[in-house]
């Protein structure tokens, strides 16, 4: 009987699908996501889409913060840059949605690279403040560059289409979101086992040592900012196209914190962690809302206590996760996996 999971080559160690266990569960999960739109109602599909956008943005932030160690408090701004780029290209220049998506990513990546320049001189809390400035600068631009962004009024965006088919419902948009999530997660998973990915991790662990062994800090730090912002831009473009409107209100500072929380709760330096974090941070508040409706229905009068409490419960849940598993949900998942993998000889 096989017990444990031993690898004898580095190639084996770097494989994406490392065991039959992983292949089986991923296969089952893939079947589920393919069947899901046919069994879910519009609300569940709306949430699924929102989770998808959050996953793309969180994976991007994890590449920067979790893998490269560069903390960013301006991720929402890059999401906004992508969102506005797509909206402006589609509504002003007549681009198709499909063409606007890569441009949204590229413009956001450019913005990310510019904001990332201070990372060459400053790190830690100082970099935090530099990226925080980006958040406020872009918020200001979204509101006050009225000739381009239509200011507070925002821009209405038509729904994407192929031929005569319009992606107007949550169900049809789900397929677009799923495509980009698979692409984004797949690329990130591959990136981290490439030379660039290893350079990111080396910079995170000790940038001075990384430079000594020949890693070009300028190139890789800016690359991390560019790739992270590219993801954010794509997420933003998808999100606002799904909502059919973009206003500056969509990208407040708190959204940047929210993305950071996704990455930390999910697990820093783990692509799977970003996915778990995005699911947790999107789904748990919804579940709490659902519970508050049950309270309203079955214990009328108590909603006045429970409804405001859900924010507290959400906060406590995050704190508990961080206290009991500082390495995030990804580590909990690993422990569960190992339990089954080693069972019954867990020692």
């Amino acid at each position, binding site marked *: 009987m096989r017990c444990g999971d031993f690898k004898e080559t580095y190639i084996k160690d770097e494989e994406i699908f490392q065991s039959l266990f992983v292949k089986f569960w991923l296969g089952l999960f893939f079947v589920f996501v393919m069947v899901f739109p046919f069994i879910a109602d519009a609300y569940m599909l*709306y949430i699924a889409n929102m989770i998808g956008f959050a996953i793309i943005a969180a994976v991007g932030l994890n590449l920067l913060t979790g893998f490269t160690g560069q903390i960013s408090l301006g991720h929402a701004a890059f999401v906004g840059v992508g969102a506005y780029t797509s909206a402006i290209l589609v509504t002003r220049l007549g681009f198709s949605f499909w063409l606007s998506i890569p441009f949204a990513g590229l413009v956001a990546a450019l913005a990310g690279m510019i904001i990332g320049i201070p990372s060459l001189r400053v790190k830690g809390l100082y970099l935090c403040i530099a990226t925080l400035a980006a958040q406020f600068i872009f918020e200001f631009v979204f509101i006050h560059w009225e000739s381009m962004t239509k200011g507070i009024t925002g821009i209405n965006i038509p729904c994407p289409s192929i031929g005569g088919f319009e992606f107007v419902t949550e169900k049809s948009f789900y397929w677009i979101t799923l495509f980009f999530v698979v692409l984004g997660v797949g690329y990130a998973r591959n990136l981290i086992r490439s030379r660039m990915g290893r350079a990111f991790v080396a910079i995170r662990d000790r940038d001075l040592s990384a430079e000594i062994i020949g890693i070009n800090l300028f190139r890789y730090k800016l690359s991390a900012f560019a790739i992270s912002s590219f993801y954010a831009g794509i997420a933003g473009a998808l999100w606002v196209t799904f909502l059919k409107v973009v206003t500056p209100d969509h990208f407040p500072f708190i959204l940047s914190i929210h993305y950071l929380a996704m990455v930390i709760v999910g697990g820093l330096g783990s692509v799977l962690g970003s996915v778990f974090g995005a699911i947790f941070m999107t789904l748990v508040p919804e579940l709490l809302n659902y519970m508050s409706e049950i309270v309203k229905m079955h214990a009328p009068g108590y909603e006045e206590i429970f409804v405001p409490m859900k*924010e507290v419960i959400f906060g406590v849940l995050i704190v508990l996760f961080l206290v009991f598993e500082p390495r995030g949900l990804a580590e909990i998942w690993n422990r569960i996996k190992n339990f089954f993998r080693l069972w019954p000889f867990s020692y």
Partner: protein
Amino acid sequence: MKKTVIFVLSLVLCIGLFTVSKAMAEQNPTICAVHPFTGRFAFAGIHGADAMEDAVAMANEEGGVNGKKIEYYWADGEYKNDVGIAAFKRLYAQHKPHCMFGQSTGMTKALAPEIKDRYKVLYSAYTFADIAASPKENPNMFIAGPTYSEMFGVLLKYIAKEQPGANIAFFYSDTEFGREPIPVGRELCKQMGLNLVAEEIAKVGGVDITTQILDMKRKKVDYCIFHGFVVTPIQNVIKQSKDYGLKCKFMGTFWSTEKHLLDQLKGLANEYMGVTAYSYYYQDENPMIKKIKAWTQKNHPKFADYRSQAYMQNFLTMQIFIECLKRADKSGAITGDSLTKALESIKNYDVGGLMPPVTISKNHSIPVGRIVRGNPKTMKFDAVSDWISLD
């Protein structure tokens, strides 16, 4: 074994028949709402949620919609766009409502294209923004009161009558809410022969407002109109204006013409005037206010002393929803189109003194307001004008 199979099959059949019959049964008139029950707009949401529940309960006691019981469901949107939209979608998926009420301007903007093309529900919200009063773009939306622009219209009409050619200052927050009526306000000043001499911008909750006060003093402002704030910095501007010797009258729009501002102003309450769209809770000479008061004392004793203007807004909106449902039901079927037609047919509809008899304008709003002034002795607002209509 055979018995078990028969039992299971019968059970499945029964459940199936029950589900089908439930689905086929005619749906009761249904209304859903997303309230900002928590978050920074909770001061309005807590009263608003009760108002809608109370209005539905009262209507059901009186026979509902032509004998059909009205169903009402709500969820907390936390005054966040994403949470509000999710709540909207959840409520719609669960209850397929005929009418929906949203929590903010942002949520209304985000949902406008889908409400028009997909959901086709009669929609209103905790907003007085023009987007909900533009039937060409959004035929299913309405505002149960004046828009922010129309509130400015009422204020400026009052000023033009009191002091023709007065110097005006707009004092607004740098937010979507704050900037909304400013372009229309500028135009209205020109039309009414008023001099717009200053536009001051401040942060919501900002405390450093000396520059703005000195600028208004330099420009000899006669009337300063606040918009985009609920309390702070209004009370600070009024208090500090006294110190700097600025002699001007201060006015505000709906959300700041509320008791909590008077509580902050205390002895300076009479320095503040505002435009309101509805009668206040203490104006119980109006039969509907009397009814609301009795209902609140019985069912929500915690709020027996005061119900905010948000309560009145929500209560009136629900009255209009119910009236539209009645009219649409009588016309044959309750659909988005029949509800919009019913809405547009509302003329001189008596709302028991909550506001003057309601006529929905061609913009799907009720362009009526009244100027009130704070009373430092009673800490209430007293009416200083009759209802001013812009039509």
